[in-house]
């Protein structure tokens, strides 16, 4: 439910075709949505996928009935855009298998001067291990986990975003967490 009065006002304007209002309405969620998408579609594609999602949201704004919050609706569209993006990549047989390179890119985004080189390397290694561990989870486990732990979504919001029941959300989170812990356990010394 969209209870924020400013958001409701922007939504109404956006529905009437005010693109600026649509941008103002969506901008607060851009960073968190891109972070969410980076864990679904890869950080290199996150913003492009979000742009596709935003275009879809703009086109479908008339179908938003306000039963869920704008954020969960937007994230739901973003998730479909990510899945579509992954399907296209798969169909083109361009799935990136260069995980090491991906990890290096992740690490290179860090601020080189902020920490001691030894500490920085350790952080980078931990980041790489956690990201790779997340990638090993199937999408139906990874998505609720990312929404819950990174985006602070409540169970009900995850249920709305994914179109599943709250019970299913809890079950998937339980299994996702167990799987992730099992994977991370192998690297306990490197990450803790």
């Amino acid at each position, binding site marked *: 439910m969209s209870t924020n009065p400013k958001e409701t006002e922007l939504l109404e304007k956006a529905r009437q075709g005010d693109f600026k209002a649509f941008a103002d309405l969506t901008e607060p969620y851009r960073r968190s949505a891109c972070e969410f998408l980076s864990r679904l579609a890869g950080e290199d594609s996150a913003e492009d996928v979000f742009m596709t999602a935003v275009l879809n949201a703009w086109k479908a704004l008339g179908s938003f009935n306000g039963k869920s919050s704008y954020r969960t609706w937007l994230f739901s569209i973003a998730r479909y855009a990510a899945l579509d993006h992954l399907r296209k990549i798969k169909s083109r047989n361009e799935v990136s298998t260069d995980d090491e390179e991906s990890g290096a890119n992740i690490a290179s985004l860090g601020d080189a001067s902020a920490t001691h080189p030894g500490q920085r390397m350790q952080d980078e290694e931990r980041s790489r291990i956690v990201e790779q561990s997340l990638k090993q989870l199937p999408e139906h486990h990874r998505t609720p986990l990312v929404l819950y732990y990174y985006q602070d979504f409540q169970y009900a919001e995850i249920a709305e975003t994914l179109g599943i029941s709250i019970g299913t959300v809890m079950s998937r989170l339980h299994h996702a967490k167990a799987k992730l812990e099992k994977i*991370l356990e192998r690297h306990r010394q490197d990450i803790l």
Partner: protein
Amino acid sequence: MNDDTLKSLLRASAPPVALRSADAFWSAVERQAQVPGRAPAIPRRLGLTANLLRRWQAPAWAAAAAAAALVAAVVWPGAHAPALDQFRIGDELPNNGALVITDSDTDATILWVITEET
């Protein structure tokens, strides 16, 4: 590992996501949407109509074909569809009011018991 530990670990390990400036991003979106100052492209009813058409086109054609076949079977009973157009009245009729209709092509038999209201 409890929830807080896992959350801290995941968040501490989250790589930063490089984003364009808000202006650059939304200008690009607006260019792609190609609808500056116009209503969102949401011809909802048209969209629904198009979807409905797409969804029901094949079944509609199938139904039309089935209807045509049925009409043909009635108008030209000699065609493939079995029709009870050749029947004989059973011998039983005079005695107990039973009518036996037999399709000579398929040997299908209908026993029709005639009752009388007094």
